[in-house]
Structure formats: structure tokens, C-alpha cells
């Protein structure tokens, strides 16, 4: 299928769904229009609301808050994950001792931590950063741990034959291998950082996209909820695109994955 055709079909599907939504919520096809609008709003209203959010500029503050929470959670979680992952992989005894606790901590659904973090860090951004951190940390940690453990034995033996000492092995072999594993999980970890931020905002805050949606929901403002959701999705797509760009740069040495569309 040509690129052009694919694009037309993709846009067609979107427009079709919007049209169905619009028809059902404007004309009494499936029942009373007012009831349907109460539950599902109306695409025209939603678009108008999004326009208003950007036009009045009130959305920027919320976007800024969510973005900074996401980035902070991602950066702090990644740094901690890399350091601990490296440490555990190079010290199997430490890894063995901590193993059950790591598994336990990772098994815990992070949402239950949100109230604790609010108690500790207040309703500001740091409780959300903490929630995102607990998600990002484990993804990065497991990937780096794996990356250091699964360095090809042949590459390692070759590097040692080239005369590398422990420090040089770390720099030229273990580190790049661990980073490549971490970068391959970049999409997931950035996504989880955002989930942590939005869920945290949703559960209690005074700003951010999660807060916006929660507030609209509290007043049965379904149009506001949908508008928030659309903005959130667009925001995620933009961030994901950014990650793809970064990834292409950092993993240039990797062969292209088979079967990508």
C-alpha cells in the first residue's frame, strides 16, 4: 500500500468515527439526544472546548506541570535505575540478597502508593514525580541489569584479549550494552513516567492534565473530560515522537528491527 493511500485511509477512519459520534449525539437515532449528550458529549462541543482551552491559554500551565513531572520522574528514575542495575549486575551477591525485596516492590500496584507519597511530599509536583519514579525505576533497572548480564561472551573475551582492564571493559563494553537496553525501553519508561504523573494528579493536585480531567468529571462536565482526554493523547503522541527521534540518534549502530511497519 502506498504511503498516500495509507494516510487517506487512516484519516478516513478517524473522520468516519467522528461522523458516527456526531450523528448519534445530534439526532435522535439511538434515543434521547440530551441523555446521549450527557454521557458522550458531542465532537463539535469537544473541539470547541479544546480550542477555547488553547485560545484562552489556560491549558499551557497544566501542560507545563504535567510535562515537568513526567521529565523529572523519567530522569530521576532512569539515573537511579542505571546505577542500581549496574551495581546489582556487577555484584551478584548483592543482587541475590535484595532479589525477593525487589520482586516484592515491583509486584506492588503503584497506585496504592499515591496516598503515601501525598502525605510525604504534599499535593505539589513531587508526589507525582515520586509515583512516576517508582514506575520508571523498575523498567530501567531490569533492562540495565539484563543488558550488563547479557553482554555477548565472545565480545567480552575479545575485549579482554585486546588488553582491556575492568575499568575499560566497563566503559567500552558493559556501559554501551546496558545503555542500549535502556534506550530500547525508552518508549515504555517515558510512557510510564507520564502515567505516574497523570494518575497522581488525578488523585489529588491543583494543576496538570490529570487535575483538569478530574475537575471536569467532578462537575459532570463530560465535554471537559473528553477535551482533556484528547489533549492528553495528543501530548503523548508528541512525546513519543520526540523519543523516537532521540532513539534514532542513540541507537544508530543497531540493525533495523525485522518486521517493522
Amino acid at each position, binding site marked *: 500500500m502506498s504511503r498516500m493511500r495509507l494516510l487517506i485511509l487512516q484519516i478516513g477512519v478517524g473522520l468516519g468515527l467522528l461522523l458516527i459520534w456526531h450523528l448519534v449525539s445530534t439526532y435522535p437515532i439511538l434515543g434521547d439526544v440530551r441523555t446521549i449528550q450527557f454521557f458522550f458529549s458531542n465532537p463539535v462541543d469537544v473541539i470547541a472546548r479544546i480550542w477555547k482551552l488553547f485560545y484562552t491559554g489556560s491549558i499551557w500551565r497544566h501542560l507545563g506541570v504535567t510535562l515537568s513531572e513526567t521529565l523529572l520522574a523519567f530522569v530521576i528514575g532512569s539515573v537511579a535505575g542505571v546505577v542500581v542495575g549496574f551495581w546489582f549486575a556487577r555484584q551478584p551477591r548483592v543482587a541475590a540478597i535484595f532479589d525477593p525485596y525487589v520482586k516484592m516492590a515491583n509486584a506492588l500496584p503503584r497506585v496504592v502508593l499515591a496516598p503515601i507519597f501525598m502525605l510525604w511530599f504534599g499535593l505539589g509536583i513531587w508526589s507525582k514525580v515520586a509515583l512516576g519514579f517508582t514506575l520508571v525505576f523498575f523498567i530501567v533497572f531490569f533492562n540495565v541489569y539484563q543488558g550488563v548480564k547479557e553482554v555477548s561472551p565472545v*565480545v567480552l*573475551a575479545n575485549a*579482554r*584479549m585486546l*588488553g582491556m582492564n575492568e575499568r575499560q571493559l566497563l566503559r*567500552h563494553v558493559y556501559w554501551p550494552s546496558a545503555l542500549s537496553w535502556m534506550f530500547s525501553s525508552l518508549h515504555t519508561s517515558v510512557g510510564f513516567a507520564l502515567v505516574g504523573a497523570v494518575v497522581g494528579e488525578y488523585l489529588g493536585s491543583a494543576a496538570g492534565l490529570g487535575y483538569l480531567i478530574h475537575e471536569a468529571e467532578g462537575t459532570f462536565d463530560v465535554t471537559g473530560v473528553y477535551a482533556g482526554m484528547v489533549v492528553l493523547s495528543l501530548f503523548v503522541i508528541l512525546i513519543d515522537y520526540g523519543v523516537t527521534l532521540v532513539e534514532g540518534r542513540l541507537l544508530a*549502530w543497531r540493525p533495523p528491527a525485522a518486521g517493522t511497519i
Partner: protein
Amino acid sequence: MSPLPQVVAHPIAASSGIVRLDHVSVRFGLGASAYEAVADVTLEVAAGEFVAIVGPTGCGKSTLLNVVAGLLAPAAGLARVHGRKVEGVTAQAGYLFQQDALMPWKTALANVAVALDVAGVAGLEARERAQALLARVGLARFTERYPHQLSGGQRKRVALAQMLIRNPAILLMDEPFGPLDAQTRGMMGDLLLSLWSADRKAVLFVTHDLEEAISLADRVVVMSAGPSSRIMAEHRINLPRPRAINEIRLDPAFHDYRRAIWNDLRDEVMKAYGAQDDAGAAP
């Protein structure tokens, strides 16, 4: 020069070998599951000598290389390089692996330059020397490619340059051209010989390909089937140098060598296959 191959006895006299293995045995595993890969191997490689080790699959040829490289400690016996016992990685040796051993996250140039960088040569000089050596192995236009962007033969050339740039006194090669197609193998063999003839380092070359061994080496060592492989025979190859891989194979003397060595090897190859079949049939 006699066209007939001559079988030489084990060199026992203490001579000036760069590499010396004395009654080396290697075991893997412990207790009942222990497995003796090679038993009582005594071998010497003189300065400037190209020695090929042939033997059936699983006879511990690579194990011997790893002992010389210091990647593996022998269970018994003594491995010496330049008269000194091998402890830890042998710094004077370069190792060319059968599998891809390049760092996939470094370009061809960086892969070669890092070997000098590790040895303390400054960055710019390391890059210039790496560039020059890559040009010598015919990769002048591919220096900025990553390993996955190179063909199997090109990757081997990079690995060859990576090994040679430190100017090691001993070259250890573990079926280096095994994964390549026949034509590329011939070309790699010629390249290796031309690089080697410039300064004649001591070479220990493991292969299962008899013709490759004869066309490259000064001496071919035949090992018996494993476990507990031993050296069965040694043949000195008196073919004239410089050699061209594809032409030397047409030499009548080449065929005499081939026949003689195959005579030694045939039963061992059968034994090795038999052992594999037994293992396959086990419940």
C-alpha cells in the same frame, strides 16, 4: 624438498618456542559430570611459524587456543608464552574468534582504534593508524560503518585489523573464516598470508578444513576425536612461499599432503560422528 609428507615426532627438546604447552590437560565440570576435553598435549610454536591444528568437531582445538590465550586454565600441565607461565590474559597474543566479536556499538574505525586506545596511544594517532590498517585490509571506504552494515567477510577484515593493530607477537585464530563462503575464505586466506609474510608472527590456527590448513601452514597438527583428545600426528608442509591459496591447491604435492593427513584424520572423524549419533539417540 621431498614431495612426500614426513611425519615428525613430538618436539621434546627445550628449544626457543614462543608458545609451549607441556602435557596440558583441560577438564570442564566437576565430579561425575566432569569432562576431559584435551589430555596430555605437548606442542610448541616457534617464532615465525604458522601452525594449523586440525581435528574432528568437538576435539578441543579451540580449548587449546583458550589455554594459550589465558582465557582458560589447564587442569594439569603447563602453558608458557615466551618462557613465562600463562596467568591471566596473554597480553602478547591477538585472538581472532570464529563468531562476531566486534563491539556492535562502535564503527569499524572505532573498533580498531579502541585496541590502541586501550594500549595508551593517543586518540588522534590511534584513529590515523586504524584508518591506515583498515585501508590495508581493503576497507578504506567502510571505516564509518557499524558492524551490522558490513558483510561477514568485511567484519572479519575489521576483526583482523583490530587484532593486528596492537602488533601482537602471537596470533591465535579459532576457525576465523568458518562462517564465510568458499570464495571469501580463499580471499581472506590470501589476505592473511600477505599480512603475515610482512613480519612473520607465530600463528596458531585452528580449523576443521584440511585444505585450508595445508594451504596456510608450515606445520599441521592432527588431533584425535574427543573426549580426551590428543595430538596424533604432525606434518611439516614444505610447500613454497609466497603461496596463493587457490593455486597452491593444484600443486601435486598438496594432494600428497592432503592424502596423508586425511589418512590420520579419517578414523577420528568417523569416531566423532559416531559419538554424536550416540548422543542423539540417547533418551
